């Protein structure tokens, strides 16, 4: 076990975990930040997407010990009131069915729009292709990313 200091959602958090523990499980099991979801555990579905220094990463395969210097943002820290443009667009478009993958989708979309504030529909498709939605809300996700780009 190792005591590690992490920067999560603008706060300093100390955790006592094995160094190989993926960030996902530190967030969920040790810090109670369960908005970041487990689904595949092998970086295939994107449900676990968080930001490392603003970049979308798969927290399920990222050992927590590799993040000591980094600023981590989870869905809980994306906005104070749930009013990040991507969250607002997601609500306006009414994207969710079961909703399980949506926090990962939102985190991926937010990081993408940070880099590309006026994306084409093809660029949206490319960016969002790394997240799986088993309910098949892809049409709505696409629409919401385009709307968020306008709100940003």
């Amino acid at each position, binding site marked *: *076990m190792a005591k590690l200091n992490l920067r999560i959602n603008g706060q300093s958090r100390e955790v006592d*975990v*094995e160094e*190989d*523990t*993926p960030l996902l*499980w530190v967030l*969920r*099991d*040790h810090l*109670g*930040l*369960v*908005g*970041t*979801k*487990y*689904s*595949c*555990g*092998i970086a*295939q*579905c994107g*449900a676990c997407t968080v930001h490392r220094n603003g970049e979308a990463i798969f927290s399920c395969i990222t050992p927590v010990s590799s993040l000591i210097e980094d600023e981590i943002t*989870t*869905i*809980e820290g994306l906005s104070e009131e*749930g009013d990040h443009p991507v*969250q607002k667009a*997601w*609500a306006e478009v*009414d994207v*969710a*069915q*079961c*909703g*399980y*993958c*949506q*926090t990962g989708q*939102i985190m991926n979309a937010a990081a993408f729009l940070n880099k590309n504030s006026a994306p084409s*529909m093809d660029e949206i*498709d*490319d960016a*969002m*292709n790394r*997240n*799986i*939605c*088993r*309910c*098949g*809300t*892809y*049409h*709505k*996700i*696409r629409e919401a990313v385009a709307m968020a780009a306008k709100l940003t």
Partner: protein
Amino acid sequence: MATRNKASRRDFLKIAGTTAGGLFIGFNWMSCDSPKVEVLSTEAILAQAQRFNGYLSIAPTGDIVIYSPNPELGQNIKTSFPMLVAEELDADWKKVRVLQANLDTQVFDRQLTGGSGAMPHSWERLRKAGATARFVLVASAAKLWNVPAEEITVENGIISHKASRKSGHFGEFVTEAATMTAPEEVKLKDPKDFKIIGTAVKNVDNAEIFTGKPLFGLDFYREGMLHAMIQRPPFGMKIKSVDDAAAKKIAGVQDIMIYENSVAIVGTSTWPLMKAKRALKVTYEPDGTVESTEDHNRIFKDMIANQKGEVRREDGDVTQAFKNAAKVVVAEYQCPFLSHSPMEPMNFFAHVTGDKAELIGPTQTPERARQTAAGILGIPPENITVEITRLGGGFGRRLAADFVAEAVQLSRMTNAPVKVIWSREDDLNGGLYRPAVRYRFEAALDESGNMIGYKLKGAGINSGNSTRQDNFPSGAVANLKIESVEHKSPITTNAWRAPITNFLAYAEQSFLDEVALEAGKDPVQFRLELLDKAKNSPTGKIEYDVDRMIGVIKTAAEKSNWGKDPAVKQGFSVYFSHRSYVAQVADIVQEGGTPVLKKITAVTDCGIVVNPTGANHQVRGGIVDGMGHAMYGNLTFKDGLPTQKNFDTYKLIRMKEVPEVDVHYVDSGFDPTGLGEPALPPTGGAIANAIFAATGRRLRSQPFNEQEEFSDIKLAIRRA
């Protein structure tokens, strides 16, 4: 999540009398002081609210809480059910909060999610719950104002009497209403007067979903709870030896237990259990038959060719019809096992204490969860509570209670609260799949291309009856025989979204396309001719409404410009399932030598559309699901274990593989039917038929992507 529902149960009044319809007669409430708070928490509303019936509480502030009894897995029931109550109540939707009800068989009937059945089951009873509450509120106002009830109007949560210029919100009348008895019967609205039903009310959980609040079973946490993961055996195998020395050494692992045919690892967090599971060395030996996909392919051929089927339906004289035929068309279709693979893997929480148990988690069948626990523990079901979390998808997998049983057993063994967690690998390998099925179709055509004979033999692995003998084209063919044969396998199966029809519809609609073309007829015209027979000279029992099926076919032909543009190669498909009718047309266009799947037009008759956003979600989602699995879904077996372990090899459809989906409805005016399933079955057929139209290749097996005939067709998918 957990605390809120429990608080509501404890803090509210008892229900003095209810019926399955949710009528509540006589109140028993708490104090009724009315603080002037602008935005109250749901807990605060509930603390002072009066419960009108199983579905509805209203606080003196005018705030309304509506309970949604059925598990929410993405079908939007938690939004559309309360809409029905609020409609007849004439409530202000902005004042409505929705709570997921716990399992309560005293108050609710059919508290489950499956078969697209919730809406038809509850359409009337939920509206009655709202209407009877409205009735007593109006009666209360009439009494307090001393005016005739018939002169009172209700709009948007405000009760008014125009002549006396009196008005007030619902909350002002709940105290008086509590002294009244709700009527058993009350007049419901004419659909033309609906104000909430038919509008795009947004998902009531949006804010919580999009901010990552703990809604799902896997998010549930209880102080002192143990986490557990389980190593389950391959199908047809039993444990030979277990070496847990290395696994036990992993920090965070508390105990490893062998029980029944499984090895359970418990600890205080998830990651050590995942590591320990990998370090665990378990060997297995056969315990009966151990099957691989090659075995299944052989078994299928034997079943079709040699085994006598159980006759499900026989009309006319099939032998004579085939003797008289000018042309006979024969084709066989096959589909693989599929995993449900909801995004949230299986999990459940159980806390067994003495002769009581608390169950919390994602289940489509809370009552089955309770009965399962009662059976294991040997305690009365009424000693067990079940709290339903939001489900991160289900697709039928969560109709079963195997994961509930595991949590109950482990809680009893460890004498602690336990949450069982399945990894994705466990989820794909742990069983209860869509059964693999093979069909043989035969059609006899006369000189004019009329179908005078039809035979279907379904062969399935743990599929039960793999046919739907009273569905189309039954009733439209004078000589018809439908039979099924089943192979019993150690590989477990279960209902998978649109059970049986998720594949049968594709096979049948592709075969009918083959027959239509052999008959020299347009595929749409061919179906309409059959339906004309079913309408005017039907044979035997018909499960579907002929006119409604004709309605979606004609509308789909119109909306898709069927056959109008020679550059667009189209495939048609139509299916009736779960009381709804859906016709689909897939469009493929050649672009620079590449066939591009651009669009699927869908026309649905599900009666009244309760919530257009929710309905569009189910239609589009069903089509995406049907397309994804038709194109890519494949679970193969080697020595009793699936070859695919995770989403790197078990491919699910992604953003870039989805065409435009153009959604339309037929306004038939019927009472609403469910939509969780009916849009899925027709999709595979529409796509396969369009691929044939565009390339001349007939795809008779799924997934399309792995078929030999498809290997040199580089089908692109792009939105128009």
